[in-house]
């Protein structure tokens, strides 16, 4: 079980613990806009869920951002989570006069990390099968979320994510980093301003879908929680091709997310836009699987008068996982 931390953190302030004036915190954090060294109470306490290739990239990035403090890392792979914990503690120790830092906990089960009251926000960089579910669990635990793409595996999962994020007033940033890139923002502004005229047709290239595989069972490595790795996905026996255990894998967009955590505004890749973008991919997959062109009603989020195609909009999660 995680140790409950009692510290005057930003979270404590947000919960209204004691007679603490709002003005200095809000004014200072917002005015600073992330520049310079952030006071401890102004730092966003981060947890990481999934520390594979993408997760490690996010970790490295956030270690350099003064407004973030990484306090927890979670991965079903013991090698990855211990490596990440060590990396965090080493970096923070370098910044301290005594050269010591022991403030990052490592977890196997994301529910243990999410149970911590002192974590403000989480970065979800698990396999795709976990994205919608981990987001839902995190939001319901009161955390703000950064989730890698694709943000969901089905259309219905995407809509459920929008609903839950809005319901609890959380800040969600999808890992569509180009939304924070100056060049892409400029290009979008130009198109919206009519630089290429009225847009009538948009072509989206879809690379096709991934086939399911039947790999032979191998012994589950000691240090890997295979059941948790699978999560809500279809059961497969462990095979190292799914997950090679013990090997390291390979202001920004994060800055934009941090700013929105403070101001509670919509980030560049807000949940609605991230989910709508992901839904486009799902539509491509469904067209591929059904082998025909499909008409889509984006308002109702159904294929009108096409019950067969509609059956592809959702899929059951492996128990005990549910959105």
């Amino acid at each position: 079980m995680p140790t409950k931390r009692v510290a005057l953190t930003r979270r404590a302030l947000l919960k209204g613990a004691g007679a603490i004036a709002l003005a200095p915190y809000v004014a200072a954090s917002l005015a600073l806009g992330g520049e310079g060294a952030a006071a401890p109470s102004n730092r966003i306490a981060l947890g990481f869920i999934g520390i594979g290739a993408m997760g490690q990239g996010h970790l490295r990035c956030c270690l350099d951002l003064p407004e973030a403090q990484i306090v927890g890392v979670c991965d079903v792979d013991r090698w990855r989570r211990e490596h990440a914990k060590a990396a965090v503690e080493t970096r923070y120790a370098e910044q301290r006069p005594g050269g010591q830092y022991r403030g990052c906990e490592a977890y196997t089960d994301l529910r243990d990390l999410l149970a911590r009251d002192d974590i403000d926000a989480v970065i979800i960089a698990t396999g795709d099968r976990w994205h919608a579910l981990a987001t839902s669990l995190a939001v319901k635990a009161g955390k703000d979320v950064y989730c890698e793409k694709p943000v969901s595996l089905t259309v219905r999962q995407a809509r459920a994510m929008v609903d839950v994020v809005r319901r609890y007033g959380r800040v969600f940033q999808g890992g569509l980093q180009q939304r924070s890139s100056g060049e892409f923002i400029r290009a979008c502004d130009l198109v919206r301003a009519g630089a290429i005229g009225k847009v009538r047709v948009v072509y989206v290239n879809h690379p096709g879908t991934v086939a399911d595989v039947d790999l032979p069972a191998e012994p589950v490595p000691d240090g890997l929680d295979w059941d948790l790795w699978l999560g809500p996905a279809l059961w497969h026996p462990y095979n190292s091709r799914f997950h090679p255990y013990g090997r390291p894998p390979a202001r920004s967009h994060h800055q934009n997310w941090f700013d929105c955590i403070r101001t509670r505004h919509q980030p560049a890749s807000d949940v609605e836009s991230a989910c709508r973008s992901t839904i486009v991919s799902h539509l491509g997959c469904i067209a591929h699987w059904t082998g025909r062109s499909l008409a889509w009603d984006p308002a109702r989020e159904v294929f009108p008068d096409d019950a067969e195609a509609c059956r592809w909009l959702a899929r059951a999660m492996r128990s005990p996982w549910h959105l």
Partner: protein
Amino acid sequence: MPTSKTCHVLLAAMCLVGVAASLALGAPSSATEQEAKLIAVLKSDAPQKEKADACRELGHVGTKKAVAPLAALLGDEKLAHMARYGLEPNPDPSAGVALRDALGKLKGRLLVGVIGSLGVRHDTKAVGPLTPLLQNADDDVAQAAARALGTIGTPPAVKALLDALANVSDANRAALCEGILRSAETLAADGKRDDALDIYDRLRGLKKPHQVRTAGLRGAILVRGKDGLPLLLEALRGDDLVLVAAAARTAMEMGGADVAKALADELAKLPAGKKILIIQTLGKLGDKTALPALLAAAKRGEKPVRLAAIRAMPMIGDAAAAAALVQLMEDAEADVAKAAQECLAALSGPAVDAAIAAMLKDKDPLVRCTGVELLGRRRITSAIPTILKAAEDPEESVRVASLKTLGALGGEPELQPMLALLVKAKTPAETQAAEGALSAICARQARPVAGNVVIRKAVYGALPDGPTVDVTKKVAENDALTITASVAPPACVNALCAAIAKAEGPAKLAIIRVLVSVGGAKALDVVRDATKDTNAEVKDAALRLLCEWSTAEALPDLERLARTSPDAKVKILALRGTIRLIPQQNVPDEKKLASLKEAMALASRTEEKRLALAALGGIHTAGALALVAPHLTAPDLKEEAAMAAVGIAEKIVQSHPAQVAEAMQKVPAATTSKQVAQRAQKLLDQAKKAASR
């Protein structure tokens, strides 16, 4: 998803390609036949994977017939998930019956799964059997029941959930609240406003969890619509920071002029910290109603608040903010002034353009300067006439800023006025600015012209002085490509040439430099004439610029200067230019060799001889090797000669093995480079083999 139909593509970590092929058995001719085949698989002794695949397929094509075979697997630890995969989307009511029947037979994970599937199906008939599960000793079961009942959202489901709230355990509270919130959304969507409000008002009063309090407030405000504004403001004014943040986010969800007005009216009453949050919210709302409040907040008060108010203005995008921002640019607080300038640049619209253009009439030269720069950043070409006048401002800083901006905005019509300004320039800074502007304008007028280009050498790396790699072989060496080059239109060149006649001193020099950047035969004529100018400074500068000419049309002039110039420095510069241009000519290699031989003879310094050897290294003939080889023993030239010799030899080793062998034998002693020595040794071996054939 086609699964057993696919060829088995191994799932590497980054593999993204899926291919669908026909079943080995052949594709079924109808959905009915397909379903029958899949059901048969379920009833057979097929391996688990095949049955799982069959369940998945039945999720897409299954009818009432598929329900019983799938339901039979709900208690199977290994196939229960896939059985639900098949049952959840099955439209036949018997699927719901099967799932409800399973409730009483299962426990643990299997039961949780079935509960979830009933929720996904919005099975209203499941409310009765699900209700008692809210009190189940297994927390996972209780939580699943709460979520499912919330998704179903009928009045009995809502009642069951609310009844459970009083005694819910800490472990199950979040899930129960989630269920209640889902049902509230359903009630609101069904028009049962009062029922939904009852729920939201109850939940927003809970002490914990904080996110439920947030959700309760949000729902309570949104369902009330405009009538929710007092509630929103009450939350904003309160001490519960969770609700303050929730109110701000909910305001953004509501949007509209009423919300903007309510927040704007509240702004002055709030403490600084909350002010910033609401100012940013007003900016995001983007409603012009908020502008007066933002302007007031920008004019005085704590600096962070003022800055936030200024930064919110471009988001509202009302040109009415322009005048205020212009004033704020003169603020004593430097950060405020800078923010105002940045935000003025970000505002769009003709009224803003006009406000900025009006800055050029301000009595403060700093304001006039800023105005000119902003016009440039905003690319207001309609302001060019105004900027041309500003280029004659009494203040030098304004003149220089105007000239630079004209360089960014001007076109062919501005050439003559720019040339006139160059001639009138009073200071070196102005001359430089005008020259830069003219070069930029001429460069923008350049148009593509087709021409043949022969690639002699290609390098990749950090040019000009960083590490590089010769990639000539990768780029097809000596291939002729048709590449379009850019050429300035005659109007540009003619304007510059005409202006030269009337210009003197620094202005004349500046125009000559612009002509050099433009290039072309006519420009070369002008520079050539300038080398005979009576003004010593012009003459000297023209000679140097001629020596830097970038195309081979200047070669005869440079060869002449290299031979006959009375000025030693010019001779050297001309010789260097000559050596640089000789390889660029489109003439036979023998001609180039002869020219380089003459150039070497003219060279009195080691530096120019090295340049000539390097140039010879690019001519891959036996004649070139013969010219290079004698220098392999010259102390100051042997290193350069070695590199040149190896470069030539690599191209002619098969045709002239004996000559190559003789030269390569001397290279190791001539060079300190291991790589060059290794290349020479390799060539020696090749030459010996070629000679023996």
